[in-house]
């Protein structure tokens, strides 16, 4: 099997100022052309992890572990700038908020031609560049792309703006696209359209995708494999198809059981008691132990197993629940 496109191994993210460890021992792989999901409730550390790994977060840094992209391992010294060099070229990023991630004073077309210039060196005013920009606008489903090229972001709705942000990322033809909660601010119908569009275009181009969301059901229906984060710890990596069917990690199971779904009745919903634990958990053992229905005393003291990326699936349970037989 070909080497994975992106490998995270034993990643620990800490705050620069206090050294507090926010996310510990995270490891997973993403293969070329794969759609990979990252799920976690708010405070689980998924955004902190992603932004630090891709050099976008100033107040945190990697204190342990390695990141390998396209067979090159990124250096620990000057990690953030090395990681950022990959952005806008080999890695595309669609951030959460379409309203603030577009420059309101710059025409949409210019923002795309700028991306083309930065990624491929195409001169910004050349007709070929303009054509490429219009083409990618059409590709993301913007009606009347020649007109849109000349317009400003505030003339578009939220869903359209998110498509434009996606277009900017697409234009750079990255090998990997990171989409961080790309549709949280959108209504249900627009959300479905944008997600399906994004995944369709990416699959077309053989692009790998990391789709980050707090919505387990959305990921379950959209991605190939997903990683589950809780309290800054990685608990599970599993195929999306296994969620809700085969036994998986207790937290994944509990999360799935507490979400209302199309075929569920009230009796099928089981709430998880207690309050969510945030990243920077700090204590020994499993972050989920306090709320887990299977928890034993061991769970609070033993170290959580780490993913050595030897197989595509992974379950981190002190008691060994959900591990493949």
């Amino acid at each position, binding site marked *: 099997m070909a080497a994975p496109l992106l490998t995270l191994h034993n990643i620990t993210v800490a705050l620069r100022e206090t050294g507090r460890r926010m996310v510990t021992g995270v490891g997973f792989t993403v293969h070329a052309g794969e759609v990979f999901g990252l799920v976690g409730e708010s405070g689980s550390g998924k955004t902190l992890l992603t932004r630090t790994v891709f050099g976008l977060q100033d107040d945190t840094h990697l204190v342990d572990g390695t990141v390998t992209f396209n067979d090159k391992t990124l250096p620990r010294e000057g990690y953030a700038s090395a990681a950022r060099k990959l952005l806008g070229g080999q890695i595309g990023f669609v951030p959460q908020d379409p309203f603030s991630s577009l420059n309101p004073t710059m025409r949409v077309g210019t923002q795309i031609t700028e991306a083309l210039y930065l990624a491929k060196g195409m001169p910004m005013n050349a007709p070929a560049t303009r054509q490429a920009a219009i083409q990618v606008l059409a590709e993301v489903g913007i009606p009347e792309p020649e007109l849109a090229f000349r317009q400003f972001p505030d003339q578009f709705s939220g869903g359209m703006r998110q498509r434009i942000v996606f277009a900017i990322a697409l234009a750079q033809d990255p090998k990997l696209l990171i989409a961080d909660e790309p549709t949280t601010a959108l209504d249900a119908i627009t959300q479905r359209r944008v997600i399906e569009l994004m995944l369709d275009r990416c699959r077309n181009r053989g692009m790998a995708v990391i789709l980050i969301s707090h919505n387990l059901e959305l990921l379950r229906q959209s991605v190939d494999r997903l990683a589950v984060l809780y309290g800054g710890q990685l608990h599970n990596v599993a195929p999306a198809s296994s969620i809700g069917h085969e036994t998986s990690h207790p937290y994944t199971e509990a999360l799935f059981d507490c979400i*209302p779904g199309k075929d569920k009745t009230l009796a099928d919903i089981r709430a998880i008691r207690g309050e969510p634990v945030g990243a920077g958990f700090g204590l020994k053992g499993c972050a989920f132990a306090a709320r887990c229905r299977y928890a034993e005393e061991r769970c609070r003291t033993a170290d959580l197993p780490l993913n050595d990326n030897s197989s595509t699936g992974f379950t981190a349970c002190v008691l060994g629940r959900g591990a493949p037989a």
Partner: protein
Amino acid sequence: MSSNPLVQLQGVAKSFGRRLLVQNRSFALKDINLTVNRGEVVGILGESGSGKSTVANIITRLTSYDEGRYLYDGHDVAGYLKSESFGFKSRVQIVFQDPYGSLNPRATVAASIAEGIRLHQPQMSKAERDQRVAQLLEEVGLPADCGSRYPHEFSGGQRQRIAIARALAVGPELLVCDEPLSSLDVSIQAQVLELFVKLIRERHLTIIFISHDVNVVRLICDRVYVMHEGRIVEEGKATDVLSHPQNAYTARLLAAVY
């Protein structure tokens, strides 16, 4: 169950003047006909901008309407005397979406919960009130002694429980819930949902549940109204509407939801 519907909106409409523009669109509520019977859990399903919150505010009389009639328990609210308007507030209460903004940051939890009791049951002594507050806290799943603390010491889910306790303090028969789960963490939503289920069962509450989340509405609502751009586009039994929608918009919405 009394044959008298508790809430009846007949041909209600509201237009927004220049002052209230939402995302560059000024919109109106048009031709709202809505009925809620005692003991029912009625859902109002719609996206943001559909007007569902405005309907909630009209029903709780937090905002006025421009056309139509609103009958509460058979009486036209437009004819209410001052005393009846005040009495109304102990019969209908509201729980809002945002657990962080819906409690006075400068008042203790106990003070916020007791506020309604002080206003509507002034004959209660302080000791009786304190006892009521403790009972309410326990009823919503919080420790009875946490009343002396301030809202910022609690998590979002806990604050939402406090807001519910405050609404229940006046002993309402109708509880309007405007997206009560939407700002909560996924795993906490189920907890608060369970609390609602318990309260409906134990207090025989009538509930109007406003949400954009089809799956939640499907779980607890008997009937549902689907709203889109200020109008009701479909209504009926929740099980019917949400599995066999007649209206094109409803169908699109249901198909889109994960």
